[in-house]
């Protein structure tokens, strides 16, 4: 009466795909959600979705594209479902120490937190640009968005970050040495 469904024949390929793409999927979720546990849950769901759709995956690179697109969608959905906005408010972002030496690790965290305060679309655009190193055309394909819109989000987000860092006393010459 009850059918037992197992798919041992694809287990090996699937586990290889998980190992190959886990840092990409997890990082997209983590940088977008700024919540490690939630990012892990969402990343798991993304891979389970891949497992259910293995029959339609034609190659390893197809799997990579599929995973990136689904990770982006699932992360955005999870962000919307979350009761609170990212647990970071601009007011909570720590001020970098004024006389810090080049490449202060605190500055990285400040930047991550500033990115977490961006609206969902520009935030994901920034993550795909600087984490995944995608160009605007590729970002447009992943997010189903015109290239001009992607470029506009990038420019505005960069200008906003620059302005916020400057307002916090962080200047280019301070950390480029």
């Amino acid at each position, binding site marked *: *009466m*009850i*059918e*037992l*469904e*197992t*798919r*041992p024949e694809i*287990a090996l390929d*699937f*586990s290889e795909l*998980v*190992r190959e793409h*886990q*840092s*990409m999927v*997890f*990082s997209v979720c*983590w*940088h977008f959600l700024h919540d490690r546990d939630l990012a*892990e849950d969402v*990343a*798991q769901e993304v*891979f*389970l979705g891949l*497992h259910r759709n293995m029959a339609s995956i034609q190659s390893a690179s197809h799997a990579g594209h599929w995973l990136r697109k689904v990770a982006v969608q699932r992360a955005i959905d999870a962000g919307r479902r979350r009761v609170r906005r990212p647990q970071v408010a601009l007011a909570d972002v720590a001020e970098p120490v004024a006389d810090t030496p080049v*490449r202060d690790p605190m*500055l*990285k*965290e400040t*930047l*991550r937190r500033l*990115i977490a305060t961006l609206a969902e679309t520009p935030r994901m655009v*920034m*993550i795909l640009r*600087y*984490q995944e*190193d995608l160009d605007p055309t590729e970002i447009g394909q992943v997010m189903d968005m015109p290239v001009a819109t992607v470029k506009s989000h990038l420019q505005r987000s*960069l200008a906003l*970050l*620059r302005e916020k*860092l400057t307002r916090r006393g962080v200047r*280019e010459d301070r*950390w*480029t040495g």
Partner: protein
Amino acid sequence: MDWLEQELRDALARKEPPADFASRVVRRAERPVYRFPRWLAAAAAVIVLAGAGLEYRQYRGEQAKEQLLQAFKIASVKVNHIQTEVQGVGK
């Protein structure tokens, strides 16, 4: 690339998930999935609906029977009353 973009690249560098992430995902994915066949679900739905229909018909029958008995009772009281009246007229 300017300084801010370089800093962004560093800040948004990929991160590794927990060490056992991949093995947990694979274990979860390979967990057997129990699925009821569609025909069984449809048959169960038909049986439930048919059963509910029968129950409802029985309930309506009981209701009708009670209403009829009530009507008989009322009619019987009226007939008795009229009979008493008629007998009184002859005396």
